Structure formats: structure tokens, C-alpha cells
């Protein structure tokens, strides 16, 4: 290290980024994007909402990336890594948007830290501060597990992003407009593999059903409204996940029907449709 630099990091972070082949990328991903909080919206609420959506993507991305080098074959390995990358991109913009709306959500770092706000949110929050759904977080299982997990996750997320495209918040609308195109591919991938495993061997069928049983109870959380989501949906900024139920149900029923797999008995979010066999579930308030 030359004398010009007090530490390795000064040399790394200061000065001209042209010394790096791929740039340093320490730049605001929302540079040039209008990040004004829409009229009548509480910036703190908007930030919390962006964290919810961003954390779902971030944690799901992390779990998917754990599949790297472990998928059944190279093509599926690449597919899972691609989907992880799409979600990471969404997470980056959403966390950056959260920080821009309300800088108070960003963990305090030592003065002069070059860590951008979205990275501070991703790396320096305590575990309790993450707002992701549990479906994104549960540890990975076998390949059937990731197929079911992605089917449930991307079906709900796609339905949400479709509606978020008309958000009054420019960043959310833009992230959604792009995300719809990406997540549509994720859902198709999961749907095709669901069908393949269902109609494959006895073993693949057995594993698929086991994964479905394990993950189905976590599905309800995706379409259960948090008060914050209701509030922002009312303000024309967010989406009330309860609105997604019908579309999500229809898509999942389509996949289950084509695959010849019966719908799991527990229907935690459809109290009205619950028959006598649904007593095991707790109807949502």
C-alpha cells in the first residue's frame, strides 16, 4: 500500500473508479429517479411498506442463491440463480426506496462509511427488524421444496406487482412494471416443474406432496393484510394483499388441477369457503 492511503480501504473506496474493471458500483441505484413521497402519504409508512416488499425479495433471493451448485442439473442451477438475481435487483431498489422515503430506517453506521443505504439495510439490521414473510425465510429443503416455494411465492408476488403498477409512488410503480415481466417467468418455471414432478415418478410425486404439505400453511401470510398495507392501499400507493386471494387461488387451482394434485385440506385464508373438514384451521380475523 502506498503512503498516499491511510488504509487499504481509502485506496479501495476513494478516487477514480476507473481502476476497477467492473466499476465500484457504490452509487445510488435510484439516481435520476423521482423519489418524492406522494402527497398525503406518511414517509415512515411508505418506508416500512418498501421494507416489507424488499425484504420478501431479499430473503427469498438469499434462499434461492443457496441453491447455486446444488440443483439437479446445470440448467436448473442457472435458472434458480437467475431468479435469485431478479429478486435481488427488486430488493435493492425497494430498500433504496425505503431509505429515500425515510432515512431514519437506515441503521446508523460510523461517520464517513461508504456503505450505501440499501446495503446498510440489508447487512446491518438486526434480525427482528426484517419484515419478510416466513415463506421466504424457512430453510431450504429438496428440489420439490424450492419448486413449491417458488410457485406459492411468485403467484402471490406476481398478483401483487400487477396491481402495484398503478401505484402513485413512481418508484414502486416502476419496480412493479419491471417485476411483472420477471416474476411471470419465475411462476411459469415453478408451475412447469410442479407439473413435471407431479407426473414424474412415484418418488417425485411423494416429495412434491411432502413439500406442499410443509409449505401450504405459510401461504396464507402472503394474502393476509397488514394494517399498514391496508392504509397504503387506501392511499393509492400500496396493494391490499386480501385483494389477491381470488387470483392467487385461481392460479394455484389451475396448477393443482392440471397436475392431478388435490388441494391441501387446510385453507387458512378462506373462512367463508371452509366446510366441516376445515375445522383444523383458524379463520382469519
Amino acid at each position: 500500500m502506498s503512503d498516499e492511503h491511510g488504509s487499504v480501504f481509502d485506496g479501495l473506496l476513494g478516487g477514480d473508479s476507473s481502476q476497477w474493471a467492473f466499476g465500484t458500483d457504490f452509487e445510488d441505484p435510484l439516481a435520476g429517479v423521482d423519489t418524492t413521497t406522494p402527497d398525503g402519504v406518511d414517509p415512515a409508512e411508505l418506508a416500512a411498506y418498501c421494507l416489507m416488499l424488499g425484504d420478501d425479495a431479499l430473503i427469498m433471493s438469499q434462499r434461492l442463491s443457496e441453491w447455486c451448485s446444488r440443483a439437479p442439473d446445470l440448467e436448473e442451477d442457472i435458472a434458480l440463480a437467475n431468479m435469485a438475481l431478479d429478486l435481488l435487483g427488486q430488493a435493492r431498489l425497494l430498500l433504496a426506496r425505503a431509505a429515500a422515503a425515510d432515512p431514519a430506517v437506515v441503521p446508523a453506521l460510523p461517520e464517513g462509511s461508504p456503505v450505501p443505504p440499501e446495503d446498510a439495510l440489508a447487512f446491518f439490521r438486526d434480525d427482528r427488524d426484517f419484515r419478510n414473510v416466513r415463506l421466504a425465510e424457512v430453510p431450504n429443503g429438496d428440489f420439490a421444496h424450492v419448486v413449491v416455494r417458488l410457485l406459492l411465492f411468485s403467484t402471490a408476488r406476481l398478483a401483487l406487482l400487477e396491481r402495484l403498477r398503478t401505484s402513485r409512488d413512481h418508484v414502486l410503480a416502476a419496480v412493479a412494471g419491471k417485476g411483472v415481466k420477471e416474476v411471470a417467468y419465475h411462476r411459469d418455471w415453478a408451475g412447469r416443474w410442479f407439473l413435471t414432478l407431479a407426473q414424474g415418478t412415484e418418488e417425485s410425486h411423494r416429495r412434491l406432496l411432502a413439500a406442499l404439505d410443509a409449505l401450504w400453511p405459510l401461504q396464507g401470510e402472503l394474502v393476509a393484510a397488514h394494517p399498514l398495507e391496508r392504509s397504503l392501499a387506501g392511499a393509492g400507493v400500496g396493494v391490499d394483499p386480501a385483494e389477491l386471494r381470488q387470483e392467487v387461488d385461481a392460479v394455484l387451482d389451475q396448477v393443482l388441477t392440471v397436475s392431478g394434485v388435490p388441494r391441501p385440506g387446510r385453507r387458512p385464508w378462506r373462512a367463508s369457503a371452509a366446510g366441516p373438514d376445515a375445522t383444523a384451521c383458524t379463520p382469519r380475523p
Partner: protein
Amino acid sequence: MTADRPAIARRDAGTPGTRHPSATPRGCEATEAGRRALEVAGEVRDPEMPMLTLADLGVLRGVEVERDADGEVVVASITPTYTGCPAMATMRDDLVHRLRDAGFDRVEVRVVLDPPWSSDWISERGRAALRAAGLSAPGPAPRRPGPVLLTLGPPRPAPPCPRCGSAATRLTSEFGATACKALYRCTACLEPFEHVKEI
């Protein structure tokens, strides 16, 4: 996006029946500096698909020369093909370096998120370059105004092999070496090839 800085694609979007809207980035060609900045930026290539310029790919959305108290600043606008595209930083740096080398001291690269990139923005020249490099160019992107339909069958009619022209091709994976490509294999010449996905 601020209202006073409309992206070119908004204008394209209003042109009904245009299957492949122009990929030509908007620029202020009224001045010599503007014309030259557009020309320099228009030569910068995509780091992942170097047979394409960023302009041909439809990623370069505009090049403007703005004036402030300190003089002229070149503002280039780019849009990611996919949200997580890891090549954005490289594209940004390449634009800055090329424009600086051409004598523009102050260069700013802005990200345009809306409207989202579409494979329809790849220019005809870009499509020809893809084919020449052995890649299959995308067909028209799906329109998704309402709920997106689930596709459990083949995502698109199998594209012909870019090497031998055979129609006997098979999808290997919807996800390729970069986010924007799917993998196919030709069952006639047995070569694998990449297809740029429709989005």
C-alpha cells in the same frame, strides 16, 4: 421520472401497431456537442453481448447536453434490461469513460426505470448482429395489461436454429447465462444456442 424529462419509449408506446419501436436514443442533435455526445455514447457496447451497442439493445434511452452554472454536462440515460442486471455499473462506467475520452469533462449517467425495458426495443441492426453472432433474436414481447396468464406449456413457438436454420429445436432452459437469454438446442445440427427472451 419527472414529467419534464420524458423517456423516448413513452413516445414509442403511443404508436399502435409498432412491433419494434425504434431503439434510437433520444438526443439533442440541434447542437454540435449534442450530436457528438450522442454519436460517442451510441458506440458503447453491451458488456455481456458485445455484438450490440447499448443503443441497439435499447438500453441507452437518451443523451442530452444540459447547461448549468458551471457549464455543459452530458447526461446519458440508461435502463436495465432486468432489475438485477449486474452489468449496469459496467455500462455506466463505459459511458463515462468514452464520453470523457471524447472531451466531455462532465458526464452524468441516470437510471430510467419507467417504462421498463422491452426486448421490442432491440433495433433491427441489433437483431441482425445477434443472428450473425449465432444468437436467436426475440419475437414480439407479450402484452400484459391485465392478469398475466400462467403458461405451463412451451413459452413460445420454438425459434429456428440460428446456425443451420432447422425448425427442429428444443428448449433446454428458460434461464441462460445472462438474465435476458433462454437456452435451446437444435436437434438437427445438435448445437446449443441462446435465445434472447421476449419481455
